[in-house]
């Protein structure tokens, strides 16, 4: 069943983020499940940004194409979202901005700026809005009061009081003039839920997985991970370095990795391109590294602050020459957390580059969770024991499983040589054809172990479906909601979610998909990159992929609409979304 969606819209710099941060905390503490997706422009002031907050008693997996409550901080916000308003939608606006007339839509005007000025400063408009929203959602002011206390406490009592006064003014105004417009949320278990976004989840996962060194160059939408880790770096004994460019970032991390510490870099498409040669170096020099590539629509500068899934083919093939790699694309913040831990471990275990593919939607969206379980996390030490390594030490010793014992620089009595050429077992340059062949084969023997590791595709939905979706990364959420909607409407639907994309779990994919009819991949790109991968790795030639390539997140409605195009309207009639 569709949940309540509340959209906050306004200009960059108008305080959207403050309102939404407070509102989300308020609702998470009240026990609601939330999903907040952000849509912002590549500018610092002005323009139109918005945040859509889904509110429900159960977990929410994808944004909705409709709005139940629109909080419009400026009048442009009403124009921009007009097409998402339906009969019964409520628009909260500053009563000084005359709203247009829209059929069936109810308007609640609050003199936000006037109230704010009365409280002493235009910035209190945020608090007015918050109070008004609390009234519209019928959640009372107790939570708001204590949150404002907590949030503005550092700024002194006066600040708290004024914010509280402003919030109450907003609340009272709605209660007084729009009592019939308010609508209550579904009942929920009163418990405080964790509120986390994908950037925090990935950063936490990396840190839990033993990250010691991170280097990056700022680039949207990856910077939020780098910011989050940097904020806690000193406390956790991690070194964070802003590099002069992405080439430096990746090569710094490789040096640190050769010295024996766990490293990661964060970037996005264009920055990843610049890291390509360094990734290739990680391949031949067998240097562990985790590369978080947070996708935005490309090519080149593309749409810097939007979401997309265009870089799968790129990470599968980036870097010249051939070498094994892991590629993961978790579907949710929760999965991203655990995947980031695995990524750190696997990079070390296989001495190979590990990609973590996310996108703007993943890192910028807040979601509620009950908890993240770190009690079972084991950080296995994969550095070799110097006492057990055969002498003389050889960095690239040829072994049956392809993994050579790795010792850090500075190990007593040992010489450790990392090399970018084809090399002998001890790392010395070689051009000898036999050694070259043996080294290539050694490196690729790692795949036997890698393919058995975590990240197998997951099935969801009906076991004997008439329609099957296949998704990766954040297309998971919308696919899941679409599958639910289809099943609710009596159309048997199921889906396979791919987190690990390299080494591709071909056997498992075949088991899940080979005998299914009407398999459609769901992807945020134009060419259907998972569909290509399935064809290549499993021989499964899926049907027309469900794609989206305008920089916006995929919704269940988008999927259903595309399916209608392929399968005709008929049986999709009963679908409620």
């Amino acid at each position, binding site marked *: 069943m569709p949940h309540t969606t509340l959209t906050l819209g306004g200009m960059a710099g108008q305080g959207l983020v403050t309102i939404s941060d407070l509102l989300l905390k308020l609702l998470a503490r009240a026990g609601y499940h939330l999903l907040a997706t952000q849509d912002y422009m590549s500018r610092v002031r002005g323009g139109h940004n918005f945040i859509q907050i889904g509110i429900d008693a159960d977990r929410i997996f994808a944004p909705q194409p409709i709005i139940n409550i629109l909080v419009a901080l400026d009048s442009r916000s009403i124009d921009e979202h007009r097409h998402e308003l339906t009969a019964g939608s409520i628009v909260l606006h500053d009563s000084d901005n005359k709203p247009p007339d829209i059929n069936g839509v109810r308007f609640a005007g609050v003199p936000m700026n006037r109230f704010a000025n009365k409280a002493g400063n235009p910035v209190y408009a945020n608090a007015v809005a918050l109070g008004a929203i609390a009234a519209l959602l019928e959640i009372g002011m107790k939570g708001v009061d204590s949150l404002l206390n907590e949030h503005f406490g550092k700024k002194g009592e006066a600040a708290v009081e004024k914010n509280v006064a402003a919030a109450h003014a907003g609340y009272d105004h709605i209660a007084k003039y729009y009592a019939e417009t308010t609508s209550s949320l579904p009942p929920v278990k009163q418990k405080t839920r*964790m509120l986390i976004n994908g950037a925090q989840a990935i950063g936490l996962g990396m840190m839990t997985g033993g990250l010691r060194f991170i280097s990056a160059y700022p680039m949207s939408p990856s910077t939020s991970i780098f910011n989050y880790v940097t904020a806690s770096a000193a406390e956790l004994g991690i070194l964070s370095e802003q590099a002069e460019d992405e080439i430096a970032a990746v090569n710094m991390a490789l040096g640190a990795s050769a010295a024996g510490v766990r490293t990661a870099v964060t970037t996005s498409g264009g920055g990843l391109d610049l890291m390509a040669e360094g990734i290739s170096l990680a391949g031949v020099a067998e240097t562990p590294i985790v590369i978080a590539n947070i996708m935005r629509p490309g090519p080149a500068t593309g749409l810097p602050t939007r979401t997309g899934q265009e870089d799968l083919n790129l990470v599968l093939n980036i870097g010249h020459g051939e070498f094994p790699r892991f590629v993961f694309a978790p579907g949710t913040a929760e999965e991203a957390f655990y995947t980031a831990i695995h990524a750190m471990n696997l990079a070390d275990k296989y001495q190979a580059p590990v990609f973590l593919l996310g996108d703007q939607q993943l890192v910028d969206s807040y979601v509620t969770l009950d908890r993240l379980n770190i009690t079972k996390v084991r950080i296995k030490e994969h550095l070799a024991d110097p006492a057990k390594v055969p002498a003389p030490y050889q960095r690239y010793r040829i072994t049956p499983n392809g993994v050579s014992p790795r010792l850090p620089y*500075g190990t007593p009595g040992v010489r450790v040589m990392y090399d*970018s050429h084809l090399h002998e077992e001890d790392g010395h340059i070689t051009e000898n054809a036999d050694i070259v062949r043996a080294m290539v084969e050694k490196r690729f023997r790692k795949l036997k172990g890698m393919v058995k590791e975590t990240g197998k595709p997951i099935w969801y939905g009906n076991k004997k479906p008439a329609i099957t979706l296949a998704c990766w990364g954040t297309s998971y959420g919308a696919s899941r909601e679409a599958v639910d909607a289809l099943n609710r409407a009596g159309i048997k639907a199921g889906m396979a979610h791919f987190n690990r994309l390299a080494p591709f779990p071909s056997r498992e994919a075949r088991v899940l998909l080979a005998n299914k009819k009407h398999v459609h991949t769901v992807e945020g790109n134009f060419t259907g990159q998972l569909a290509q991968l399935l064809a290549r790795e499993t021989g499964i030639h899926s049907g027309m992929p469900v794609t989206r390539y305008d920089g916006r997140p995929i919704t269940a409605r988008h999927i259903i609409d595309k399916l209608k195009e392929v399968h005709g309207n008929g049986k999709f009639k009963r679908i409620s979304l």
Partner: protein
Amino acid sequence: MGNSNAFHYEGEKAWCPGCGDFAILNAVEKALIHAGKKPEEVLTVSGIGQAAKLPHYLKSNGFNGLHGRALPPAFGAKAANHHLTVIVTSGDGDMYGEGGNHFIHAIRRNIEMTVIVHDNQVYGLTKGQASPTSDKGMKTKLQPEGVILTPFNPLAVAIALDAPFVARSFSKEIDFTADLIEQAMRYGGFALIDVLQPCVSFNKVNTYQWYQQRAYRLGPEHDPTDRAKALAKAFEWDSGIPLGVIYKNPRPGYVATVIGDTEPLLKRKVNTEKINSLLARLY
């Protein structure tokens, strides 16, 4: 040196007979031995080029990375284990051409390491194209009418960036070079030594003789802490090339400032309690 030299690599070296790189390798070994270093304590990092082969020819830890990218991994390794003595060996193309951006910013970052540039004013390994330091007029297959770009002046740029230690040597002067390297290793900051290094195969302009005629050692009258004088020395070229420490501006390096006297990153372990406290902030 022979047996008493733990750093000495006996295998074949793929340099041309007579190449200045041999003498630089020799100077590195001398400096390390004289400074009492053990091979396991030392890490040499390089990019790609003839000069950059050096880590393969020194029995010690090595990182032979990508063309132009010697400095970033050197930074990473030093940051991860600051007990290592890190030496970067690179060519003029590697360091000032492909790697120019890292050169600028590594100076700004000022991590404690010794950077030796084998400056033969040419791309040796790729057979004789102009490098950033090639003199104007030098003809090559890619510059058939002669080089027209103004040569890159590494010393002047380093001083303009206020690099803490800027020196020049000439490969033939092995002991002099070794002594500069030892000073640099002890210096506690980013220390640049640009070493004039004849390429006997491709640089027919700047030969042993050409350098010999111009190179002279700076006397005690040169005050390397005077930036203006240092710049004036850095600009000298055709009529005389000063050797020695050109500029010095001591200040705490990156390790001293950021990492301090703590355990190397390498030794640090994940603290579950702290992770839990981060998680707690999300409620």
